[in-house]
Structures are given as structure tokens and as C-alpha cells.
């Protein structure tokens, strides 16, 4: 085990997969000579050359579609969006081409590829650069959606995503790149985490905090505070939103009988909406309280520091929600 950053973990995954499989190539804005806007692709150009590590023009729609086309004939592109904020232009290709190709061709043309990049709010980047985009991609059948929260998950899940036969949207946390954590050493063998397996990041019997992505850390902070108050929280990190580990969700809800969904995105038709629906459909008789959600304020992200703070989901909001489902407030 080595302690490395989330960024380094992603870099390792890319490096290992490119080395393992000649059909994997990397394309995106600034990924080659600049080493990546967030330095995730550092050193890869030197190692693999400009055939496999390619700086694209600022044409999200174009290079996303190019990736889909290349995948249609068997390559395994990793398309990097500098952030998913810029990928709205590419949504047509992601949804209409990547997600639907296999189906509308009657199973003739699979699209094995990864769209990756950061999403969610950073610090004072204002409305267009602070946006958790999960829900747009989670919505479409044909796509898979992965959200790692730790360096180990980032590595293991990116490797699994690259190997998957379907288009995978792999969303990283913009604020997580410097996060350090233990990751198995490359010498210790191929470290792959299968998609669709949630991870219980903390165990407790009183309340389930279910979340994904960057907010996993916020959930852990809140759980620590609740502990001082005698409340033990389960913190379930879904890690992949499609496939979704429904069994793990039901298990924690059946144990604690109360749940709060925490996410960076907006509440309306957010990821939490689906999770709540699933819980009430399949664990109704285990609920002792309505499932609550803690989300970003239902407004575009403001710039002003105090407003931004208020708009983001917070430890306090989460604790409050936990108390409410525990009938403690």
C-alpha cells in the first residue's frame, strides 16, 4: 500500500490500462503537452506518444463524437472533459450516440469507452463552472455512471470502467484531486473494483447516510459529529450510480430504518430522487421516517463566498436531516 493522491491514482489507472491494452487511447483538451488541466494525465504523452495521448481542439461535441465513432469499431477511447460543465455541448453524442448505439443497431455495435473528468463545485467558480452533472447521465439507459470518492476507488473503478463493454461516464471530484489515500501498489497485482458495488465507508446502527462522490467526505465528517451525540451513522458510498448497488442500499435501510441521501446536485429529479424511490418501493416496511435529501440549494451556484457556502450541502444541514429522520428535532 502506498499513500498517493486521487490524481495520482487516476494517472496510475490510465497508465496501467494503456499499457495493458493497445486499443486504449486518451483524448481531450490539454491532456497531452500540458499534462492535463488537473494533471491527471501527467507523463502519459512522454510514455505513450501523441498517437495515444491526444490534445483535442476545444470541440467537446466533436471529440466526444469522435470517441464514440472510434469505439464503434473497437477502440477503447478515454475522452477527457476538462470538466463536465463543458460537456453539455457533447450531450448529444453521449446520449444520442454512445448510449443508444448498441440498442438501435440491434446489438451490432457496442460502444466501449469512457467519458471522464471532474464535476461538482470547487471554490467560487460561479454558476457555469460549479455544477454537479450526475443526473443528466444517470438518466439515460445505455450509459453507466461511476463516481469515485477516494484514491483507491478512483483507481480501481477507472480501470473497471475502461474495461467495460459499454460507455461509462466517470465523474471525478474537482476538490478531490489532492486527496490522499492508500492505494494498493501496482506491483501487488491488478487492482480493479467492479462496477455496481457500493462501499460502506463507516458503520453505525442508527441512521443511514447514503451518498456518492465528493460528499462522501462531508458525510464522514457529519457522522463523526453525530457520534459525539451518541448517534452512529452508516455511511454508504454508492461509488457507481449505474449499475447501482440496490442491495447495499436496502441492507443499510433495513438495518437503521431511516436514511438521508446526500448529494452535490440539485434536489429536483436528482440522484436522490431515484434512491428515495427505490427505497420506498423496496424497503417501505422498514422505514420509520421519510427519507430526506440534502442537496445543493435549488439555485445556480452563486459566486459570493457566503452565498456559495450557503448553497452547498453542509455538515450542519446533513446533521439536521439525520436528527429529523431520527425524530430528534
Amino acid at each position, binding site marked *: 500500500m502506498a499513500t498517493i493522491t486521487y490524481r495520482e491514482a487516476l494517472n496510475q489507472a490510465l497508465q496501467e490500462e494503456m499499457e495493458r491494452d493497445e486499443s486504449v487511447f486518451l483524448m481531450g483538451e490539454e491532456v497531452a503537452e500540458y499534462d492535463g488541466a488537473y494533471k491527471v494525465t501527467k507523463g502519459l504523452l512522454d510514455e505513450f506518444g501523441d498517437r495515444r495521448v491526444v490534445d483535442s481542439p476545444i470541440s467537446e461535441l*466533436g471529440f466526444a463524437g469522435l470517441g464514440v465513432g472510434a469505439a464503434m469499431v473497437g*477502440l477503447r477511447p478515454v475522452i477527457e472533459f476538462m470538466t463536465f460543465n463543458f460537456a453539455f455541448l457533447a450531450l448529444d453524442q453521449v446520449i444520442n450516440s454512445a448510449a443508444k448505439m448498441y440498442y438501435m443497431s440491434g446489438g451490432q455495435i457496442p460502444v466501449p469507452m469512457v467519458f471522464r473528468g471532474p464535476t461538482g463545485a470547487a471554490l467560487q467558480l460561479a454558476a457555469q463552472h460549479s455544477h454537479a452533472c450526475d443526473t443528466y447521465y444517470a438518466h439515460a439507459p445505455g450509459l453507466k455512471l461511476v463516481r469515485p470518492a477516494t484514491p483507491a476507488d478512483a483507481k480501481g473503478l477507472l480501470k473497471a470502467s475502461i474495461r467495460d463493454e459499454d460507455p461509462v461516464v466517470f465523474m471525478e471530484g474537482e476538490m478531490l484531486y489532492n486527496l490522499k489515500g492508500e492505494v494498493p501498489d501496482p506491483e501487488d497485482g491488478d487492482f480493479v473494483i467492479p462496477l455496481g458495488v457500493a462501499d460502506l465507508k463507516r458503520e453505525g446502527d442508527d441512521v443511514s447516510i447514503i451518498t456518492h462522490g465528493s460528499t462522501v467526505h462531508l458525510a464522514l465528517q457529519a457522522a463523526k459529529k453525530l457520534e459525539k451525540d451518541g448517534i452512529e451513522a452508516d455511511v454508504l458510498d454508492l461509488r457507481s450510480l449505474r449499475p447501482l448497488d440496490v442491495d447495499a442500499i436496502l441492507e443499510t435501510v433495513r438495518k437503521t430504518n431511516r436514511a438521508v441521501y446526500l448529494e452535490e446536485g440539485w434536489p429536483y429529479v436528482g440522484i436522490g430522487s431515484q434512491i428515495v424511490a427505490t427505497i420506498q418501493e423496496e424497503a417501505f416496511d422498514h422505514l420509520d421516517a421519510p427519507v430526506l435529501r440534502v442537496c445543493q440549494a435549488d439555485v445556480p451556484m452563486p459566486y459570493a463566498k457566503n452565498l456559495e457556502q450557503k448553497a452547498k450541502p453542509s455538515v450542519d444541514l446533513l446533521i439536521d436531516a439525520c436528527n429529523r429522520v431520527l425524530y430528534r428535532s
Partner: protein
Amino acid sequence: MAETQTKKSKKDKAGTKSSNAGKEESLEGFSKEELHSFLREMLLYRRFEEKAEEAYAIGKIGGFCHLHIGQEAVALGFIGPLREDDYVFTSYRDHTQGLAKGLKSGPVMAELYGREGGVSGGKGGSMHIFGAELGFMGGHGIVGGQIPLAAGVGWAIRYRGEDRVCLCYLGDAAVNQGAFHEALNMSAVWKLPVIYVVENNEYGMGTHFERVSALPVVDRALGTGVPAHSVDGQDLIATWKLMDELVGKVRSGEGPQYVDARTYRFKGHSMSDPVHGVYRTKDEVEEKKKSDDPIIVLRDRLFDADLLTEEELNAMDADVMEEVDEAAEFAENSPFPAEEELYTHTYAEINEHGRLFFDRRDR
């Protein structure tokens, strides 16, 4: 109807036929045999689309159905010169390109009928004809959506160091999409082996191209650095020859090419749109049908060169009609897809863990 026109013309020419016997058996470097196969092929496209029109009218085919009638030479003229392992992309007006790339008329018709025997098992329909094994990479439903995909296939060809070529059809209206400019730019930058062919039938649905573009179609690739060409897309021989030349360039690594293929659609934008109306007059359509029908153009050249007799043409047409009838029969006899197929082909890999579908128990 094109059919009536064709028959009339045949009669007009009938008297002059026999006297030309004994002339040289080729035209512009194409043998009589080749020329006959061209004519037969285009007749097949025409009869196929007429059959589809008929089937649509009686409710055998649903949804959107965009016919290629009038544009047959563009299908054959660009796909004909390709190798079997080359790739073709097109938009939703895609039946005849599929046939041109080698798909059988029965499975294509069955796809239109939404049947199990369709090329995509009935899941794609008229707008999504696919033949992956033949390099027919599909009919795509979003205007311009296929252009970056074709660039991607071009990328893969280059990546693998192959000498294949990717042909990408697009409608004239698609040159106004961002995807067009982004894809052509990348193709030029990376010298991708892609030939972009604009089927310039003058109208994007009901809007004439000149009303929405300051420059003619051929000039729209100017800013990308992709060499542009223009051709009479109703003239099969001219089209074929140009494509043959471009394929050679692309295969030898010269990078992408762009063609403005001037053609004309004899039918409405789709089966649910009028043939003429506020956007174009009946006279305009009738005039084009008379003077600019690619099948008539080729037929007359063959008649003039004494390479075709009326009997041969009739036999050819009867043969084609029989094939089309068989295609319709194949479609008719093919069952609807099994209901279990609803969920198949959504994912190529059903992961071992987790849930991918959120409603299956309900169905």
C-alpha cells in the same frame, strides 16, 4: 410518379434502339455489364422505396420514413467505388445506402416493418439501418450527429494504420451544425481518411439551403482546410468517377475530402411531409423529375450508346420488382420481435453487481 415517367421515356426511345447494335460495348470506361448492374441497382433502390411508400400508406411501416427517391445516383455513385471493408455513415435517409453497401433488401424492409428479421431486429426502424459486418455504420437520426462518428472511425483507421476509407453522408442542412465544423476541423488536423459527401437536395426539410446559408454548400468546408469538390449527383457516371479518384487520394493518406453532390428529392422530406407546397412548387418538382431523374439520365445514355434495349430494361425492372416483392414478403412473414427483446441490447455488458434497469419487474 417516376414510374410513369420511366415507362413513357422507354416508349419514346423504343424505335431508335435496334439500329445502334454492334457499337463498342463500353461507356466512359465502364463495361456494358457494369453499366447494366448500375442501372439495375438504381432501379432496385427506386422500386424498394416505392414499395416502402406503399407499405407506409397501408400502415405496415410506422414512424418517420424518409425516402431516397431521386437521389439514387448519390447512393450508388459514392458507395460503389468503395471496398467491402470500407465504412459508410449516413443520416436517417438511409435505406438505399444500406442496400448499396450490401445489405439484403428483405432484412432492410423487415427493419422498416419493425420485425425480428430486420437488420437491427426491429429495434432501429427506418432511420437506423445498420450493417456492422458490411461496414454500414448506420443511419443516424440527429442532423449532423453522424459526422463526428465518421471522424472517429477515420481516427480508428489511422490509429490502426489501415488503408480503409470512411464515407460520411450528410444532408445540406447539416453543414450548419457545429458538429460538422468540429469534425471537419479535426479530420483536417489529423488527416483522417474520411470523405464527407453532402447530399445537397437543396432543402433542409422545407427550407431552401440559400435561405439559411450565405455561402453555397461547396464553400462551407473552406474554413476547415478539407479540400472541397462539387459534382452533379444525378449523373451516376460523373459521381462514380469523382469518388473513385477521391478514394484513391484518401487511401494513400492525403486526408479528408468534401463533396457537394447536387441532387434532388422527388418526395417529401418524410412520408409525413408534403412533396411540394409552400416551400417548392409542383412545377419545380415535375420539371426535375422530367429532366433530372438519375435513373432516366443513365438509361438514356445507355440507350444513346446502344448499350441497352427496351427488352433488357423491362426484364431488369421485372427482376427488380420481383426482388422488392420478395423483400416485402420477407418482411411481412417475419414475426414481430419477441417481447423479451425489449431489454436486450441496452447494455453490451450486464455487470455482475448492481442494477442496470430500474423497472424490469413491472414489465
